[in-house]
């Protein structure tokens, strides 16, 4: 439609300029890592087998996916994987598992999704295959906590690749400048933030991922006090408990020290705040921590230190929440599950796990050291201090989604903590009764 080449050229130049302009400060990210293939043993296939893998792309999951593709595409097997984001994986998992035939043969699974798919009998329980290959793949090295995080009703539904633990990151250089110690509780974070803000250089020192982590932050606050969404004794939701009020108040108390738009911050944006130096304290999943030590991404790469997510009360448990990722086999695959299991197992061998460092905290955590993984000590301390998964229940996702919006309203001051918790209690009761039907 353009009338002349000159106009087309001008449009293209303007478009480029606009994209450059809007990309100011956007930074770049590490792409998929190159991997050196490892041994992937399986009987040669008489007929060509195409294995389709569904796995979202991230610096923590890519090493395992790439390892499977690079190591196991041979002897009549072709492993195929197309890059996709987490939202895409979420939807495609639901649709591919819905019918008698699916599009994928291996699906990336995570703790929060296991109950839903395991309870609907769409995933293969892996216990028999796990026992069969235990010795050959030295599965005794796998983290017990991570195996637990992918189990439902006593059965294992995914082979753990790596885990993410909500972890605290802070600018050690700034802490030293103000003579502060590493924070251990939310009260410490609050006091430190006050000091840093008063210093005048950083207006909003704390960045928390409320856009995609509200429920995890709140669950962590409950877990730190030994509580969870539902009281296991009474079966009643706990939003009206003193623990819920204390936990939510701990988050709301930080509001003056967080960007007023903090509820729009997802984890990449929290990372960006830390990259830019506009925040000094953050909480994110551990899989995002390695990027912070990359000098190509931030000038403050030497200044970051890591600690377990803060406890609500002194001496209490960490508020860390564990989410485990792993490989699962859909029941509707037409490919031999034993073959698929071997491909999955090859991608998490010790040699493979070493190559995933430091971007992932692998299920073979014996390969993790403070030298190869800067946030290792924080994660190990959190795990030994009782960091666990949220309740492995079918109602979890609905409960998280419906109550997160309310908690965000408390953060932006749209509703009081008491009103939010009262409303959340009603919703939680409805969610539990819906799940029971």
């Amino acid at each position, binding site marked *: *439609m*353009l*009338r*002349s080449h*000159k*106009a*087309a*050229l*001008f*449009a293209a130049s*303007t*478009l480029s300029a*606009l*994209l450059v*302009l*809007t*990309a*100011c*400060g*956007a930074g770049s990210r590490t792409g998929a890592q190159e991997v050196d293939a490892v041994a992937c043993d399986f009987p040669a296939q008489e007929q060509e087998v195409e294995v389709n893998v569904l796995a979202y792309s991230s610096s923590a999951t890519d090493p395992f996916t790439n390892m499977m593709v690079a190591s196991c595409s041979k002897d009549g097997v072709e492993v195929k994987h197309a890059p996709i984001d987490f*939202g895409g994986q*979420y*939807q495609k998992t*639901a*649709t591919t*598992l*819905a*019918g008698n035939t699916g599009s994928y043969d291996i699906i990336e699974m995570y703790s929060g999704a296991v109950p*839903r798919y395991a309870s609907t009998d769409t995933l293969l329980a892996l216990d028999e295959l796990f026992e069969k290959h235990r010795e050959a793949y030295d599965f005794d090295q796998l983290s017990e906590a991570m195996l637990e995080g992918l189990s439902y009703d006593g059965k294992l539904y995914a082979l753990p690749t790596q885990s993410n633990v909500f972890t605290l990151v802070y600018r050690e250089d700034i802490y030293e400048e103000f003579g502060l110690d590493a924070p251990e509780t939310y009260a410490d974070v609050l006091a430190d933030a006050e000091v840093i803000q008063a210093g005048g250089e950083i207006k909003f020192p704390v960045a928390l991922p*409320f*856009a995609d982590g509200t429920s995890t932050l709140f669950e962590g606050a409950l877990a730190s006090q030994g509580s969870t969404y539902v009281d296991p004794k009474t079966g009643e939701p706990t939003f009206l408990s003193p623990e819920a009020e204390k936990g939510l108040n701990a988050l709301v108390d930080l509001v003056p020290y967080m*960007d*007023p*738009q903090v*509820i*729009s*911050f*997802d984890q990449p*944006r929290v990372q*960006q*705040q830390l990259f*830019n130096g*506009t925040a000094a304290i953050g909480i994110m999943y551990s899989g995002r921590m390695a990027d912070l030590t990359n000098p190509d991404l931030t000038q403050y790469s030497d200044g970051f230190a890591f600690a377990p997510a803060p406890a609500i009360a002194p001496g209490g448990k960490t508020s860390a929440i564990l989410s485990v990722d792993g490989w699962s086999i859909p029941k509707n695959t037409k490919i031999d599950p034993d073959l698929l299991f071997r491909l999955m197992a090859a991608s998490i061998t010790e040699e493979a796990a070493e190559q995933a460092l430091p971007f992932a905290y692998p299920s073979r955590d014996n390969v993790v050291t403070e030298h190869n993984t800067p946030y290792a000590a924080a994660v190990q301390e959190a795990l030994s201090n009782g960091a666990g998964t949220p309740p492995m229940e079918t109602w*979890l*996702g*609905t409960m998280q*989604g419906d109550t997160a*919006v309310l908690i*965000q*309203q408390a953060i*932006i001051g*749209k509703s009081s903590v008491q009103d939010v918790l009262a409303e959340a209690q009603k919703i939680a009761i409805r969610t539990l009764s819906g799940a029971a039907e």
Partner: protein
Amino acid sequence: MRRRELLIGVGPSLGVMLLLLGVPLIYTIVWSFQSVKFGAPGDWMGLGNYARVLQDPTFHSAVLFTVGFAIASTAVLLVLGYALATLLHHAGRGRSVFLGVLLVPYVVPAIIAATAFSWLFDNSFGGLVNFILETITGEQVQWFTNTWANRGLILLAGVWLGAPFYMLVLLGALKGVPSEQLEAAMADGANWWQRQWYVVIPTLGPMFRFLALIGIMNALGVFDILIPLAPNAETVESQSVSLYVYQKAFARDQQDLGLGSAVNVLMMLVMFILVSPFVRNIYREVKAGTA
């Protein structure tokens, strides 16, 4: 044209349309009366989905936002599109350059354009507009967490993305305004505003109605631009009906296709109410041979 030739010519496309539009429509209506999960046959529940939706305050908020956005964005786009088209119609040598600049957002996929647009208002990614506004006013606008600021941001992005189409269509239509009528009006002493109001705009009337129809239909389905522009759409009450359906039917663990279908049926009714006056007028004009 004989009936047989007409059938041969139109039949295949009619068949494809029935397949692609008719079948999903029937499924949507049937599912709206059922509880449906992925891969499982639905369970009949009568008007249960409709009752749930109509009692859900989040849905009320989504309808208000969507209808408000449709009306506001269409009105702004008509005015702005007309203003830009008029400017370009009278532009001299620079017309190609201006056209090129104005077409930039039109050639970029909406989700990418909206993401880039959002960075202009986001301090984490440069926030050029924020910087300018703060320098001038000393105030920071909470574009992503304040309800009306966020709605304004979405409207701005919608207008930025849609304006080139309106401008192009109206620019083409302006060329069809009879010069005799304009000259006669000038001879009668009509000033520029009077010529626009009494000659140009009435002549372009059918085109305005067509654009209004397209604008309302497009805006009622607003979805993709909200992903980067309203990351907490539900919390800040900037959630559109399409986003509400997406959340209920696909994004969360409920995956309630029945509820999503009921919302879609209700939205078809809303759309019918909003666009029927325009459709009726366009039909009359086509019938009278004026369009």
